[in-house]
């Protein structure tokens, strides 16, 4: 395998990782601030993709589609927070798992009822389509490069938001001591709604961006949701930094595992068997990684609280 191919695959792993980060960031914030396990986060990802596909279909503008995805997911998130999630904060994880699982059912079948059972169309905008040639002669899709850039910019933005702004201070305070910030006169209900809507918007953005190169269909959120959970658990729940590191680890493991494990297996067995065994191992790789991290560090790489 040439060095160029290796670099290209690392880029692919990075791109997958930063998109996972967009999902995981919201999930980990919501868990960190409100102590809520939100299984319905994948539905918000789906809502983003469907809003984008609907608006792109009607207007032909990818920018408007992204705006619609952000807005649609944020509004759906805020509504769900006010109507349902708010009643779950005091409850234990079990009730949260069941209630947000119920939300998945409602969102998935509701979307199917609205948009039908067939996948929707959403494409990469012309300006970003096709490959570009990188230094060293690597041909790489321009859109995927854009995704890496957007993901890293969002990560930077989130760090600034959390560390430099008033709302960020409130979020950090909320993670450490809930009673305290209520006593300081912060409207905690409003803060929770904002955090939830922010997480939802990030998920919706990820759904729209990824939807352009994948299939926009009902049920697209759940596989990503599971991966996002893997990410935040590896990184340590509540930690944005952990989410970023975890997302990149999972992205790289998933991508590189799929390529190298079959090759490694070929050293031991026949090629046909090796391809199949390697592929099986590759699909288990991130879960093995996660179990290994948790066995060594039971609260994840950057997690403090249990």
């Amino acid at each position, binding site marked *: 395998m040439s060095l160029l*191919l290796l670099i290209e695959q690392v880029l692919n792993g990075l791109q997958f990782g930063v998109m996972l980060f967009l999902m995981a960031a919201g999930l980990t914030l919501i868990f960190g601030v409100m102590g809520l396990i939100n299984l319905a986060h994948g539905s918000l990802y789906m809502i983003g993709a469907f809003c984008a596909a609907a608006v792109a279909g009607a207007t032909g503008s990818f920018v408007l589609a992204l705006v619609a995805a952000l807005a649609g997911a944020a509004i759906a998130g805020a509504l769900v927070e006010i109507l349902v999630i708010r009643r779950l904060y005091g409850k234990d994880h079990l009730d949260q798992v069941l209630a947000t699982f119920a939300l998945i059912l409602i969102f998935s079948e509701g979307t199917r009822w609205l948009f039908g059972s067939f996948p929707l169309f959403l494409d990469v905008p012309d300006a970003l389509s096709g490959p570009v040639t990188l230094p060293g002669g690597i041909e790489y*899709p321009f859109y995927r490069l854009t995704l890496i850039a957007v993901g890293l910019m969002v990560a930077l933005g989130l760090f600034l938001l959390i560390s430099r702004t008033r709302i960020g201070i409130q979020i950090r305070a909320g993670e450490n001591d809930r009673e305290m910030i209520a006593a300081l006169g912060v409207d905690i209900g409003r803060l929770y709604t904002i955090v939830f809507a922010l997480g939802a918007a990030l998920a919706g953005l990820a759904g729209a961006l990824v939807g352009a190169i994948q299939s926009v269909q009902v049920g697209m959120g759940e596989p990503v949701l599971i991966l996002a959970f893997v990410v935040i658990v590896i990184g340590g729940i509540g930690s944005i930094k952990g989410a970023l590191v975890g997302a990149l680890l999972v992205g790289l493991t998933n991508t590189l595992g799929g390529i190298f494990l079959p090759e490694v297996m070929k050293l031991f067995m026949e090629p046909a068997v090796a391809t199949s065994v390697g592929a099986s191992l590759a*699909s288990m790789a991130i879960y093995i990684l996660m179990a290994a991290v948790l066995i060594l560090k039971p609260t994840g790489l950057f997690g403090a609280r249990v």
Partner: protein
Amino acid sequence: MKFFSLAASAALALGVVSANAEPLKVGMITTLSGGGAGLGIDVRDGFMLAVKQAGNENIEVIIEDDQRKPDIAVQLADKLVQSEKVDVLTGIIWSNLAMAVVPAVTAQGKFYLSPNAGPSALAGKGCHPNYFNVAWQNDNLHEAAGAYAKETGYKKSFILAPNYPAGKDALTGYKRFYDGELAGEIYTKLGQTDYAAELAQIRASDADSVFFFLPGGMGISFLKQYADSGVDLPVVGPAFSFDQGILQAVGDAALGVKNTSQWNKDIDNETNKAFVESFQAEYGRLPSLYASQGFDTANLLLSAMGSADVNDADAFRAALLAADFSSTRGDFEFGPNHHPVQDIFVREVIKEGDVYTNKIIATAMTDRADAYAAECKM
């Protein structure tokens, strides 16, 4: 329970005493909710269209949703056989669900007509006199893609499919008739949606063509990413990733791609023309491969009902085997293992106005049966 009973009331109103006083009961188990619902809805709509057009008063169809879960499908089969006492079952889309349901159903003496899945186990050693497949054996369309690749002169194909039994069958089927070298052979993760890594491997290889079997959303993702990657090799695949239901979601990325299918809307015969027109009129969309299979399945059943009583199993079986109906595919007959012997075509994805669709450009295989018929003893 959704009854589509055209039976009793009409018969009574006309005062007709038919020879078959008991209507024939059909149980349809198919996927109507969740991710794969589009395929089941098409099969159901095609089937019900044929039933409606026939105006036959002696058929009653009970439709159930399997949610694409094997255990639910088994439970529904039990219900249809035990409570509803159906004579014939049909409708299952997925091979793994068919494997869960069909052996038990046929062992209980019921007929099963498959409108979609054709796992090799049921075509070979596990074949059964009461099991009829009206669609294809699972390998067929992949074999046709291999035959087309050979004829076109591809010498180095890069082939990929998901890591599950149907995926392995697909690559085996392709290799059965393709005789060039392989530039690479990859099993992807089932349900995978990002193919960047595989595309990089294709680009780095010296392949001259790409064959893939990635049904449903996996295929949509792959094609969009393929078009965007700058890899410019010809692609062949089975019809599943290029069908009417999903082509609109793939868009330009699919244009010009060659795919293999036993059916297309431009097959030139009266039945097919009438089917395409009436399906559009009834449901407001173009029919898919799956709709045509549902339609053919119903017409096969109706033709057998016309010449035999379902309670006389031997006569009914012979009537089914005769396949005396006009298929949307033109010629249609069953081989010794009750699987179709049929022509398989090469289609190209084109754009008609705003709608993406297919047109037939060649015939890949003529009168193709399947690789497992010899193993079938019945």
